[in-house]
C-alpha cells in the first residue's frame, strides 16, 4: 500500500463526474464567495500587507538558499530540548518511522491533528493495516474519515460535504446514540462530534500533528488551528509525533510573526486563527501534563530535488488555500477531481513534482490562466508560470493524450502572451454572444478539458474580464 493511490491522471473524467455531482455542486456553491470576501476584507485592514508579502517571500528564498544550514541548526535545538528528529527521504520511509514509534509505545489508537503531510504519506491506511486505529480529530477530517474520503481542500477538508450528508454519516457511525435524537441544527451536529471525540483524546497513546512552521532559533514546531483539536491531540497522549516537510523552516520567532500575519488573513480572513501553538521537546520534568516523548518526522519526498529548479518557488507555500479559493477551475470541479492530496493551483504545481509527471502531469492543464491565484498568493508564488512550465515539459515528453497535444503549440504561445489569449477569448466570446447560444462549451485553445463543461453564455466581457472586475 503506497498511501493514496493517485487518480490525478484521470483529471478530465474526474472533472466530468464532479460537474454532474449535485451534492458536490451544492456544497461548492455554498462556500463560494465566502472565503473571497473575508480574505479581501482582512487584507484591506492592513495597509502594509503587500510589503509583508515581499518580506515573507524574501525570507523564504533566503531559507531555501541555505536550507541545509537551517535544518542543521533546527535539529540541534530539537535535540537539546530532548526531542528526536527523524529524516524521511520518501513517504514510505515516513510510514515506517511513524509505525516504529507507535509500536514502541504499544499504541492501539493514534489521534491525528490535521496534517497534510500525513495525507501525503498515507499514514492512516498504513497504521490501520498494522492494527493501529487512527482517529482524525479535526472536525472536517473526522467527517471525511467517517465517509472514507480524502480531503478536498487543504484548510477545509470537508468543504464538499453537505449538511444532510454529515447527518447521515453521524447516524451511521454513532449507532450507539439514540436513533431518534434531533440533529436538525448545525450546533447539534457539532456538539455530537465534540462529545464523541472528547473521550477519544484520553484513549490514544500517540498524537500526530502537522506543523505550519519549524523555527530554527528555538527548535519549536508551530501548529495553527481554530478548533483546539491539534492541541488536545498533542497534549494528552504519551507520545507526540510532528510530521513536517523540510521546507517549513523559518529562522526566528520574529519570522514566524511575518508568516502569521499572512496565513490566517489569506486562509479564512481571520486576523489570527484561534490557536497558534509553539511546541518544543517533551514535557518538562515538573510539568503535570504534556507528552513524554517528542518526535519530528522531517519529510523530503522529492522536495530537495525542487531546489534550484524552476519549481523551487513552490516551496515557499504556507498552505493557506487562497489559490484554490480564488480558482475558477477548483470552484467548478472541487478538490477530489485533482485526484491526490493537494488540489487547486498549488496542487497542480506540486503534484507532478512530488508524484511524477506521469501521474500528475494532467493537473497543470486545469487552469484558465486567469492569474487570480498568483494575485492572492501571500507568498507571491508564480503559480501560472509554473503550470506553464509543466505543460511544456509534458508536451516535450509526449505524455499528453493526443487530443490535448494537438494545438498545444499554439496554446503555449498564446498562454505565455496573455494579451493574445485574452484577445482570442474575446473574439470567440463575441461571436458566441451574437449567435445567441445560451451556453458555450469551449474556451479558446483549451478545448481539451472544457469540453466537459458548459460555461455560461458570455454576458459582458470574458470570464477573465469579469473576474478582474470582481464579479463572481
Amino acid at each position, binding site marked *: 500500500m503506497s498511501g493514496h493511490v493517485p487518480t490525478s491522471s484521470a483529471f478530465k473524467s474526474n472533472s466530468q463526474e464532479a460537474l454532474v455531482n449535485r451534492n458536490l455542486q451544492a456544497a461548492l456553491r455554498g462556500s463560494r464567495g465566502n472565503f473571497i470576501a473575508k480574505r479581501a476584507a482582512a487584507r484591506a485592514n492592513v495597509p502594509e500587507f503587500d510589503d509583508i508579502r515581499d518580506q515573507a517571500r524574501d525570507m523564504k528564498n533566503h531559507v531555501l538558499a541555505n*536550507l541545509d544550514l537551517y535544518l542543521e541548526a533546527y535539529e540541534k535545538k530539537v535535540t537539546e530540548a530532548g526531542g528526536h528528529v527523524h529524516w524521511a527521504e520518501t513517504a514510505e520511509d515516513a510510514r515506517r518511522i511513524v509505525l516504529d514509534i507507535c509500536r514502541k509505545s504499544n499504541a492501539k489508537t493514534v489521534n491525528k491533528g490535521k496534517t497534510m503531510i500525513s495525507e501525503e504519506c498515507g499514514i492512516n491506511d498504513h497504521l490501520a493495516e498494522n492494527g493501529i486505529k487512527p482517529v482524525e480529530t479535526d472536525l472536517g477530517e473526522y467527517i471525511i474519515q467517517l465517509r472514507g474520503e480524502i480531503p478536498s481542500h487543504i484548510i477545509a477538508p470537508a468543504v464538499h460535504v453537505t449538511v444532510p450528508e454529515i447527518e447521515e454519516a453521524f447516524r451511521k457511525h454513532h449507532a450507539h446514540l439514540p436513533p431518534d435524537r434531533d440533529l436538525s441544527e448545525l450546533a447539534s451536529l457539532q456538539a455530537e462530534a465534540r462529545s464523541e471525540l*472528547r473521550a477519544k483524546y484520553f484513549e490514544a497513546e500517540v498524537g500526530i500533528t502537522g506543523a505550519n512552521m519549524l523555527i530554527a532559533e528555538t527548535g519549536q514546531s508551530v501548529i495553527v488551528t481554530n478548533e483546539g483539536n491539534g492541541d*488536545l491531540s498533542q497534549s494528552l497522549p504519551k507520545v507526540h509525533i510532528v510530521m513536517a516537510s523540510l521546507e517549513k523552516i523559518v529562522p526566528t520567532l520574529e519570522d514566524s510573526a511575518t508568516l502569521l500575519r499572512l496565513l490566517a488573513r489569506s486562509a479564512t480572513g481571520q486576523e489570527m486563527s484561534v490557536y497558534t501553538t509553539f511546541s518544543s521537546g517533551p514535557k518538562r520534568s515538573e510539568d503535570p501534563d504534556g507528552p513524554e516523548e517528542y518526535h519530528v518526522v522531517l519529510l*523530503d519526498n522529492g522536495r530537495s530535488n525542487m531546489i534550484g529548479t524552476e519549481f523551487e518557488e513552490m516551496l515557499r507555500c504556507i498552505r493557506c488555500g487562497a489559490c484554490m479559493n480564488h480558482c475558477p477551475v477548483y470552484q467548478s470541479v472541487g478538490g477530489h477531481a485533482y485526484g491526490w492530496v493537494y488540489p487547486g493551483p498549488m496542487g497542480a504545481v506540486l503534484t507532478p513534482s512530488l508524484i511524477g509527471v506521469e501521474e500528475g502531469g494532467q493537473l497543470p492543464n486545469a487552469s484558465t490562466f486567469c492569474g487570480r491565484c498568483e494575485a492572492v498568493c501571500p507568498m507571491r508564488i508564480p503559480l501560472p508560470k509554473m503550470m506553464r512550465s509543466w505543460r511544456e515539459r509534458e508536451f516535450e515528453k509526449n505524455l499528453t493524450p493526443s487530443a490535448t497535444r494537438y494545438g498545444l503549440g499554439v496554446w503555449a504561445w498564446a498562454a505565455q502572451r496573455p494579451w493574445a489569449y485574452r484577445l482570442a477569448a474575446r473574439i470567440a466570446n463575441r461571436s458566441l454572444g451574437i449567435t445567441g447560444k445560451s451556453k458555450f462549451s469551449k474556451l479558446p485553445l483549451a478545448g481539451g478539458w472544457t469540453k466537459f463543461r458548459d460555461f455560461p453564455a458570455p454576458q459582458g466581457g470574458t470570464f477573465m474580464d469579469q473576474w478582474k472586475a470582481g464579479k463572481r
Partner: protein
Amino acid sequence: MSARDTILARVRDAALARPEAATNREAQVAERMTVGPKGIIPHQGQATGPQKLRQFLEKLEANDTTVTRVSSEDEIAHAVARELRKRNLPAAIRMGEDPMFHAQDWGSLDVSRGPGRLEEPVTLSRAQFAIAETGTLVLTSGPDNPVTLTFLGETHFVVLRTEDLRSGFEDMWGDFRKRGLDPRTVNMVSGPSRSADIGQVLQLGAHGPVALHLFMVG
C-alpha cells in the same frame, strides 16, 4: 549514508550549484538568526498607551472574548465567583499552581488544582502576555498553568496583568526572551474555539472552550 546525510547533501549541492550562491553562507545565516525585530511591523502592531489598550479591547470583542476589568489582584477571586454566577455555572473551578491564584481567598468556591480532566466545566489560567495587534493571549505551559486547562475547559477564564499587554508580536517575543521562559508549549489564544466544517457556517465551541473570558488586572 544515512537518510539525514543524503538529504542534507542534496540540499547543499543544490544550494552551492546556484550561480548566485554566496561564499559566506554560514555568516549570512548566523546574521539572519540574530534575534530581534528586523522587518516590517504593521501600524496595527505598534499601538502605545491608551490606544494600545483600546485596540486590544476592540480585537478581543471581534474574536468573541469577553472581559472583566478589576483594579487589583485581591479582587480576582470575587470577580471569578461573580462571573460564574452570572453564567449560571457551578461554583467550582480547576486551576494550576500559579502563585497569583494561591494568594487568593477563594471563599466557598470549590477549587481544585491540576491538569485538565475529561469533564471540566470551568478552568482558570494566567496569561504571561497579551498582544494588542490581534487580541491574542499568550500562555505558557507548566505546573502553574497546565496546558490542558486551556483546551478542556468548557468555559475558560484567563487572568492577565494589564502591564503584560504588548503592542505586537515583536515586543512580546523580545520580553518573552528576557523573562527566560522555556516552556514545552507557548499557546497563543485568540478567542474561544470554533469551526466552519459543518455547512461552512462558523460555530463557536469546536473541541476547545465554547466561551473565553478575560480578567484584566490593573
